[in-house]
């Protein structure tokens, strides 16, 4: 068993290495680098200026070498420009002598995003936090409801409940998130259509809509009002899938001997599961 786990971990690391290399090389293709040079330098740069900008910023070495630098297994590039030392690991304004020679992902130096003008770690951490909250709530909604659906429809295969629930499960797997999102907004978060105007008229909800159409405010404070729709949208796609799997194993279990024995002993259908 430990050998098996070790081998799988090895394959996993190899996959991660290959994947990062592919993504790295795709983003570091020549036309992409020219675009970067133009957005970092100036839009009106001519071809020779673009080339010299790339040269000065260390984008001219080979792809493998740059990947090694990014990973942190090769020393970062250094070069003298206008009498000052510049390099991958030398932050602008700091003393070149104190800079370490390796700086890559393995050393925890993830670099700086040129789009957001912030360190990559900070952006990733922030997004990871938001995604984590979203996934937590999705799981809280998705797992119990899909298990319930699957068990209910799997208990009596072919019954009317089963047919209805199975159709619902198929329909929800057939609806991609961007479609169900649109439909949910139309039904629940529009001030002109769906059920929100009716509810508002009846005075059952404060404000004009049942849910909020955008989740931007959920970044600071999660409420049912602003977070309900995103959670519902993501959970719906998974509910159908998990419910179908649960149903399949449930129907299998229901045919087994011990269920029949329990039934014969007079146990009603519900507590057996």
């Amino acid at each position, binding site marked *: 068993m430990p050998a098996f786990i070790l081998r799988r971990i090895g394959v996993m690391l190899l996959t991660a290495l290959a994947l990062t290399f592919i993504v790295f090389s*795709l983003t570091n*293709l020549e036309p992409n680098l020219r675009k970067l040079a133009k957005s970092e330098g100036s839009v009106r740069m001519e071809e020779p200026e673009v080339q010299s900008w790339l040269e000065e910023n260390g984008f001219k070495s080979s792809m493998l070498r740059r990947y090694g630098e990014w990973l942190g297994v090769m020393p970062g590039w250094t070069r003298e420009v206008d009498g000052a030392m510049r390099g991958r690991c030398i932050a602008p304004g700091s003393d070149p002598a104190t800079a370490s020679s390796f700086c890559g992902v393995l050393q925890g130096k993830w670099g700086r995003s040129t789009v957001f003008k912030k360190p990559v770690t900070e952006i990733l951490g922030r997004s990871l936090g938001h995604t984590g909250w979203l996934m937590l709530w999705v799981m809280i909604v998705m797992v119990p409801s899909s298990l319930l659906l699957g068990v209910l429809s799997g208990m009596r295969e072919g019954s009317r409940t089963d047919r209805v629930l199975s159709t619902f499960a198929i329909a929800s797997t057939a609806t991609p998130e961007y479609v169900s999102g649109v439909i949910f*907004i139309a039904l629940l978060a529009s001030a002109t259509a769906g059920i929100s105007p009716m509810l508002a008229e009846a005075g059952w909800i404060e404000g004009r809509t049942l849910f909020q159409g955008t989740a931007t405010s959920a970044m600071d404070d999660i409420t049912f009002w602003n977070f309900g729709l995103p959670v519902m949208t993501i959970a719906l796609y998974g509910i159908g899938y998990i419910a179908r799997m649960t149903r399949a194993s449930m129907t299998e279990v229901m045919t087994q001997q011990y269920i029949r024995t329990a039934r014969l002993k007079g146990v009603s259908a519900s507590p057996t599961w």
Partner: protein
Amino acid sequence: MQVIARFLPVWIALVVTFVLSFRFRRKLGLYGKLMESPVGLIGLTIVLFWVFTALFADFIITFDPLAQLSGMKNIAPGSPLANPTESAYPYYLFGGDHLARDVFSRVVMGARRVLQIAPAATVFAFMVGITLGLPAGYFGGKLDTFLSFLANLVLAFPVILLFYLLVTPEIVETGLPMYFAAVLFIFPIVFFSILFNSRYKTNPARRNLYVGITLVLGFWAYSGLAFNRDPTGLFSMDPNLLNVFVSVVFVNSPGVFRIVRGLVMDIKARDYVAAGQTRGESPWYIMLWEILPNARGPLIVDFCLRIGYTTILLGTLGFFGLGVSPESPDWGSTIDDGRRLLSVYLHPAVVPALALMSLVLGLNLLADGLREESLRD
């Protein structure tokens, strides 16, 4: 009501198809048996509805899907034209979008776009998956390890990220999609060549005829589709479309590969395969003419499901603005266009959303029906 009337050619075609299918259902094998399963029948009806809509799109649309009429911006469904003319259809049946185009015509034309790309891409993915999956499952060993690693690599890739990397103008500039296409489009030719070669090896005259036809037709289409250098100009593909197409095939084929590999590993142990081996048949003959026909049930079901996923994928691409072209009426881009004004004007986004949902639902139900019917015997 007028919407239903506009779909008249579709209704006629549907009725004709079903009457004929019912009449001859005993002779039609699996398809005939589908007529007896309610779930499959509903699925088939929805799918056929969209197929016929795509076929007769030219007769159904009321306006040019790109035409912008003044005074019709974001107008509600069923509104009459602002400045009616003699020749024009008097209503915007499903309203207008933010550029004053007719939503109804765009959705109908979108069906044609989606049904052109999705099944074709799925067929190519199946060709790649089958051609690689058969030997991987049959021979096993190093080949299997290598191919499975590649397949897992592609499967481990987040699809959206891959598309963001592949479907950009910069990548088109490097010619990378063309190399991808060159690799992926060769598989159908390889597949059919080996197919005929292994079958008619003992009959060189017919073998040469069939393989020859395959190679000539194949490379003719190949030169046009992959390199856009068809001398007659019959086969050609817009570079943007090629890029989308190749990416979709690339993402889908590992899935097919794994299914085929699993099926082959299961069927390999059967008696008829051993009989073939004892007769001295070549491995490719056994794979293509003994194993593949016996694996067709699950493959047909997966084919239906996979067209659905491909449709979703194409929609996702369009939704992220990576579609074929910004003007294109395909459903994903239309939903994305309509999304921006969603809280005020619903119809430009909801109509294509419902269309996409119903097509995928139909394909799923059809797959379910097929599975039920093929399990029965």
